[in-house]
C-alpha cells in the first residue's frame, strides 16, 4: 500500500511541473508589462521602467527565468514575491490558507452530516412526498446564489438574533455562517448523488440477505447498504473538497475572510501575475493531494480496491483512473 502512495506521489511531480510551466508561460503572454505594474499607478519615464525591469530580472531569457522559478518552487517552495507590493507569496498563502481550509472543512462536514442522511432517507423512501419535498428544497438552496444566501443568513442570525458575528475572522463562531452559506449550495447535488447510489444498492441481493438475517432496518441500511454505496459518494466529496480549497471566493468576499479566493481575485485584478501563478500552483498541488487521499479512502472502504492497489504494484501496471 505504501508503495502505491509513493508511486502516486512520484506521478504528482510531473503533473505539477506541467501546471507550473503552463501558468508561467501563460502569464508571459498576458497584456501589461510587469515592470510598469510594479511601479504602480502614475506615469514613469522610460529609464525608470528599464531600471525596474533589470532589478526584477525580466530581461533574462525566458528559459533561465523559468528554470529559476521552478528551481525555487521545488527546492524551497518559494513562489517568489508579489509584483505589486513585493510581499512574499509564500507567507501570504500560509497566512490565508488556514481560513480557506476552515471553510472548506466545515462545509464538507456540513454537507456530509446533512446530505448523507438526507440522501439515504430519500433513497429508502424513494418517490414518496418526503422524497420529493427534500429534493425540491435542496434544489431551491442550490439555485440561490451564495452571496444572496450569505446576506440573508447574516441578517437573520447576526443582526436579528445577534447570536453570531456578521463578518471578519476570530474564533470558530466567526466561521459558522460562512460555512453554512457555502455548504447549502452544494447540498442538492450531493444528496441526489447519495440517493442514486443508495437506490442501486438497496435493490441488490446483499441487502435482502442482510434483512433475511433478522437485522433491524437501521442496521441493514447503515450497516450493509451504505458501505457499498460509498464509492461514488466519496468521489463527490473529494471533488468538492478539492474545489473548495481554491477558496470559496464569493463567501470569503462577503464575510471579509482573508482566504485564497480574494487573494487570487485581487491578484488577477491588479495583474499581479506571480501571485496568480503561485496561487494556482498551490491550489493544483492541494487538489492533487486531495485526489490521492480520496483514492486511499476508496481502498479503506472497499477491500477489492485495496487488493487491486496491492496486486497492481506487484504486476507494475498503471492504476486505472
Amino acid at each position, binding site marked *: 500500500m505504501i508503495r502505491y502512495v509513493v508511486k502516486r506521489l512520484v506521478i504528482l511531480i510531473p503533473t505539477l511541473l506541467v501546471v507550473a510551466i503552463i501558468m508561467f508561460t501563460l502569464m508571459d503572454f498576458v*497584456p*501589461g*508589462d510587469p515592470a*510598469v*505594474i*510594479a*511601479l*504602480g*499607478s*502614475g*506615469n*514613469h519615464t522610460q529609464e*525608470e521602467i528599464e531600471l*525596474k525591469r533589470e532589478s526584477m530580472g525580466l530581461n533574462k531569457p525566458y528559459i533561465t527565468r523559468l528554470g529559476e522559478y521552478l528551481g525555487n518552487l521545488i527546492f524551497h517552495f518559494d513562489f517568489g*514575491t508579489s509584483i*505589486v*507590493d*513585493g*510581499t*512574499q507569496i509564500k*507567507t*501570504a498563502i500560509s*497566512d*490565508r490558507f488556514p481560513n480557506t481550509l476552515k471553510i472548506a472543512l466545515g462545509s464538507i462536514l456540513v454537507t456530509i452530516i446533512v446530505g448523507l442522511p438526507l440522501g439515504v432517507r430519500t433513497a429508502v423512501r424513494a418517490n414518496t412526498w*418526503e422524497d420529493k*419535498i*427534500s429534493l425540491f*428544497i435542496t434544489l*431551491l438552496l442550490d439555485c440561490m446564489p451564495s452571496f444572496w444566501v450569505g*446576506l*440573508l*443568513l*447574516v*441578517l*437573520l442570525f*447576526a*443582526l*436579528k438574533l*445577534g447570536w453570531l*458575528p*456578521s*463578518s*471578519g*475572522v476570530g474564533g470558530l463562531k466567526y466561521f459558522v455562517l460562512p460555512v453554512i452559506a457555502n455548504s447549502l449550495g452544494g447540498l442538492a447535488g450531493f444528496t441526489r448523488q447519495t440517493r442514486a447510489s443508495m437506490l442501486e444498492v438497496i435493490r441488490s441481493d446483499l441487502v435482502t440477505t442482510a434483512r433475511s438475517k433478522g437485522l433491524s432496518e437501521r442496521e441493514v441500511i447503515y450497516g450493509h447498504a451504505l458501505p457499498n454505496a460509498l464509492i461514488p459518494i466519496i468521489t463527490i466529496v473529494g471533488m468538492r473538497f478539492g474545489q473548495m480549497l481554491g477558496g470559496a471566493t464569493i463567501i470569503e*468576499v*462577503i*464575510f*471579509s*475572510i*482573508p482566504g485564497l479566493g*480574494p*487573494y487570487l481575485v*485581487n491578484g*488577477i*485584478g*491588479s*495583474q499581479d501575475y506571480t501571485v496568480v501563478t503561485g496561487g494556482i500552483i498551490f491550489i493544483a498541488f492541494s487538489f492533487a493531494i486531495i485526489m490521492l487521499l480520496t483514492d486511499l479512502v476508496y481502498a479503506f472502504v472497499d477491500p477489492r480496491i485495496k487488493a487491486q492497489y496491492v496486486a497492481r504494484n506487484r504486476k507494475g501496471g498503471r492504476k486505472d483512473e
Partner: protein
Amino acid sequence: MKKRKERKWLALLVVVAMICVMLAGCGGKGNGAENENGGTSSASQESEEGESTKIKADEAAAVSEIMENPAEKIVIAVDDDTIVAGPFANSSGVRNLTVYTLWGTLAYRPYIGAMLEDGGLELVMAKSITKEDDTTYDVEIYDNITDSLGNSIKASDIVFSLDKLSELGYITYINTYYESGEVVGDYEFKIHLKSGEEGAIEQVLVNGTICSQEWYEGASDDEIQADPATTGPYKVTNFQTGSGMTLEARDYWKTNDDDKSVVEYQNVKQIVIKSITEPSMRSVALENSEVDLAEINAIDLERFESNSEYHVTKYANAMNDYMIFNTSDDSVCSDVKVRQAVAYAFDTWTLLLANGHDQGELHHDVCPNATPDYVDDWDEDPYYEMDVEKAKELLKEAGYTEGELKIRILKNASAPNGPYESLQAMLISAGIDAEINQYDRSLFLTYMQDNTMWDITIYSEQVLDFTTTYWSALFSEKNYEHGTQGFTEDAELQKLLAAACADRSEENMNAFHDYYTEQCYMIGLYNETKSIVTQSGIKSLCLVRGDIVPQATVFDSGYASVE
C-alpha cells in the same frame, strides 16, 4: 403495510426555516421601523443642506480640548483588504488611514494649500527647514527621535529612507521631485530636488516615510511587513494579512505637546482596523455593534441618521471626478463639435445620483472650488448643462446622423457601475451609440495611456495645494508622453498653462479655464459627499483631506468601545 414513520415534521421544519430566513432578509425595511422616527433631522451634528463642504482650513481643535477624554480602544471598519504596515507601500484605503499613525515623516500638511513658506506645514521630525535655493533645502531634525524598538533615528536614516522610497517607486511624488539627500551632521542633512517647482519640497517632506536603516536592513521580509519598528506614535500588534491589525500607542519620543502635529496625538490607546469590503456588511457590523466607526453608503445611511445612538459625519470626497476626451486622431473626439455634443448630452447630477449618493458638489472646472487660487465666479457661468437639442444639432454639424457616432467609454472594473450605465443611457437617448469597455484596475491604467483604446473616460484626482498644480498634473506635456492626459497637443494650451502657473492672477486663470473649457478637452463632474457613521460616544472626527486621523479623534466622557 410499512408503518409510516412519524418524522413528517422534519420537512415542515425545513420549509418554515426557509420562509423566516426570506422574511427576515427582506423584511429589513419593514421591521426596521422601531427605531425609525420619520427622518426628522437627528440630534447628531449633521451638516445642513447647501453649506459648502469646502474645507478652507481645518482649525485643528486645541490640543488640550482633544486630549480631554483619552479612550482605551476604537474599532474601525475599512473598505479595503490590503492590510499594509511596512514603511514603504502604495497608497490604499488602509495605507491612507494609518501611514501617519505608524510612520513619522519630516512634516505634515493639515489642510489643502498648506505651504512651507507661510508656515502652514506642521513639523514632525524636522526641527527647522531653511531654504538655500529653489532646489536645495537644509533640514535640522530633533536629536531624540527613536522608533518602537528603541533604535535612534539620525540624518543618515532619513536620507536612506528617502533614497529607498525613490528606488521602490511606490510614491510618485517622491520619484518626480526628490533628487538626493546629503548628510551634513548627525541630525542635519540637505535635500536636493529635481525641480524647483512650487509644492515640490512639500511633497517630499510630507510623503517621505522614515524608518531606521539598521533595522530595515536587518529585518526579514515578514518582519518588515507585519511587525515593523515604527517611527510614528503607534506600533503594530496582532497583524492579520487581509483581515486587519491593531495599532497600540507607544512611548513616543516627542513629549512636549505644543510641538506636536495633529498626527502625533495619542488620544486612544488601541486602534483596531477591521477590513469589511462589502458595504452592506459594514452597516450590519455597525448596527450589530461590532465596530465603532465605518464608512457607510448613502443607501444604508437613512437607518443611522434617524437613530440617536449613532453620529453621522459628512465630508467631501477628496477625489474629484472629471471626464477626459481622447483628442488624438485615432478617436472620433478629435472633432471639438463631437466633444461638445457629448458634453451637452448628459446631466452630471444624474451621474451623481446613479453613484448611489444624494449629496455632493457639481464642479465648474476640473478642479474643485477648494483651493486658494480658485476663481469663484466660474461657479456662476453656465457649464455644459444637459441640452439634448443642442447636442443633436452639434452632432449634425459634425456630420453624424442619429446613432451613427460610436463612442467607446473606458471603465475601471472597481469603479461603481451606476454613473457609467446612466451616462451610456443618456448618450444613447441623445443618438450617440455608447459602449462601455471595462478592464481591471492595472489593465485600465495601461490602456489609459493608449490613445487607440478609448474615446472618453472618467478619472479622478486629488487636489493638494493649488488649482494650477492640479491643472498641470492633468494638462502639462511634461507629465505625459504625447500631449495631455487626453493626448491633446495644443501649443496655445501649454502657453496659457505656463502663464497661469507662473502668475496666479485671475486674468491668467480665467484665460486658461475659458480656453480648455471652450475647447472641451476635459470637463469637471463632481465630488460626492461621503459619510462616516460612528457610535454616539465619539464626539468628533479629525478629517484631513478626506482621510481620518484616528489618533486625534475626540471622545465623549461616557465613551466605551464595542469590543
